[in-house]
């Protein structure tokens, strides 16, 4: 439900930036705290981590992509 922001399964860019690494593929199992994507923004290589143990449902970015704020980079199951 959209009202509930807990355990968000859509990982969005908190700020515009450049994808410098994509660590996961669709269907891959990931653990809580595992790095999914690295987003270069705000003078930092930000690690986008999985909030839960699950599988990757969608990967919408590739290395080198510029993403806008709020862009859904990875969707988890």
């Amino acid at each position, binding site marked *: 439900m959209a*009202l509930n*922001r807990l355990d968000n399964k859509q990982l969005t860019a908190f*700020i515009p930036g450049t994808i410098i690494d994509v660590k996961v593929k669709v269907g891959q199992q990931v653990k809580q705290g595992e790095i999914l994507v690295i987003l270069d923004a*705000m*003078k*930092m290589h930000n690690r986008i981590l999985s909030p839960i143990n699950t599988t990757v449902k969608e990967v919408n970015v590739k290395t080198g992509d510029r993403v806008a704020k709020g862009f859904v980079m990875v969707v988890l199951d």
Partner: protein
Amino acid sequence: MPLKSKIEELQKRKEEVLQGGGEQAIAKQAAMGKLTARERVIALLDEDSFHEYDLFVEHEARDFGMDGKILHGDGVIIGTGTIYSAPVAIFAQDFTVAGGSLGLMHARKITKIMDYALRMRIPLIGINDSGGARIQEGVNSLAGYGEIFWRNTLSSGIIPQISVILGPCAGGAVYSPALTDYVFVVDKISKMFITGPEVIKSVLGEEISQDDLGGARVHAEITGNAHFYAESEIECFEQIKKLITFIPWNNSRKARRFEPKEPKPEYNIEKIVPNDPKQPYDVRDVIKALADDSDFFEIHEKWAANIVIGFGRLNGETVGFVANQPLVMAGVLDVDSSDKAARFIRYCDAFNIPLCTLVDLPGYLPGIDQEHAGVIRHGAKILYAYSEASVPKLTVILRKAYGGGYIAMSSRHLRADFVFAWPGAEIAVMGPEGAANIIFRKEIMEAKDPDKIRLQKVEEYKEKFANPYVAAARGYIDSVIEPKETRKLLLHGLEVSSTKIADRPTKKHGIPPF
């Protein structure tokens, strides 16, 4: 009547009241996975230390069938006891008695123990588990809440006030916890909201469960109303007990001093912060590399995680740590992280707890949503809180300190007592990329190969300004230090500032940007 019979009568009366809402109601409480009010108080306090007052209080309500209805203790327990030998005053609402509903005498018991706590200058703990106002008692219930809120405000900054949400806490009842210093919640048990799911459904047509609306995780992760989250009541009580060890009994004392201990060797301060300023790390490891026994008691762990706050000890003395967290959103300041840090800084200042600030941030978070959410007004709270704080203030700039973020994070200009910077610190008005683009705009635009010149100029700026020595040349920082010297200097800084006097003009009170 002989004395023996009088004593027997007392015992009989006590037994009767100690049953609370009776077997059935207690079984219901257990079925919800909850301890009873008395079990909670006993689990939280030192063994045999609890003394209960107002056991025989009765309500006087006559309307709506209340006449003749017996509500033991009027649904709340009050008393005093100790936690690790520190005295505390406590109240615990008893959900087994009329759903812990708040009537006139129920409120009077709470305000009585609040008055006691303030008079004795000891911490107050309130365990909330109540269906809300006792409707049958009408405006007397509202008066009761108002009297509680007034006392919460009166006591604020004099005695520590701790709220524990162990059941529903809805409507007006939520404001007492919100006025206190710390709110503790427990998964599946705590529920806090102003208007519950039923009202929301009837007015707005939106459907949501109690837990999704105002459960423990919602307040610990989204709203920030809760400071501590636990999976069970027993874990929650351990957190409260630990908190009590870090804070003083009142604002005229210092927190208890512990035996100093060196940090644990697995936290090597020279290996935590990467040399490349673009690489993130967990700033809590730096705190653990500095604090006695590497013991860091984090507050608001899951909310606004781009800033880290909590207590640790340096040389046995409680210190409030405030640190940017490069691991989350690059450690930017925004609306929530500003609110989080500012309130903590004011808490430490009120209770004589020195502040240790670790700086590594790119600045404030840019964005339309942040601007429109009032990041100016919220961000100003940090400036206000640091400027106002008169406790010893020690600052260590680990890496980045740019722009408004540099000023905000306990800079010399806001009257930090000691500002240290590591050799890799970058202290400047803005990042090299942005600065070079502005300063050398013309040169870059007119160049044959603008990208090459831009990179060259960025490097030039980096070399010239992205270091600690420009600030050191003006005395804005006191020393450029090696990471391994940090703890030694912090300990010394605390030692020489223990008799600090920060003169301030007399005023009734300031007007912080609430």
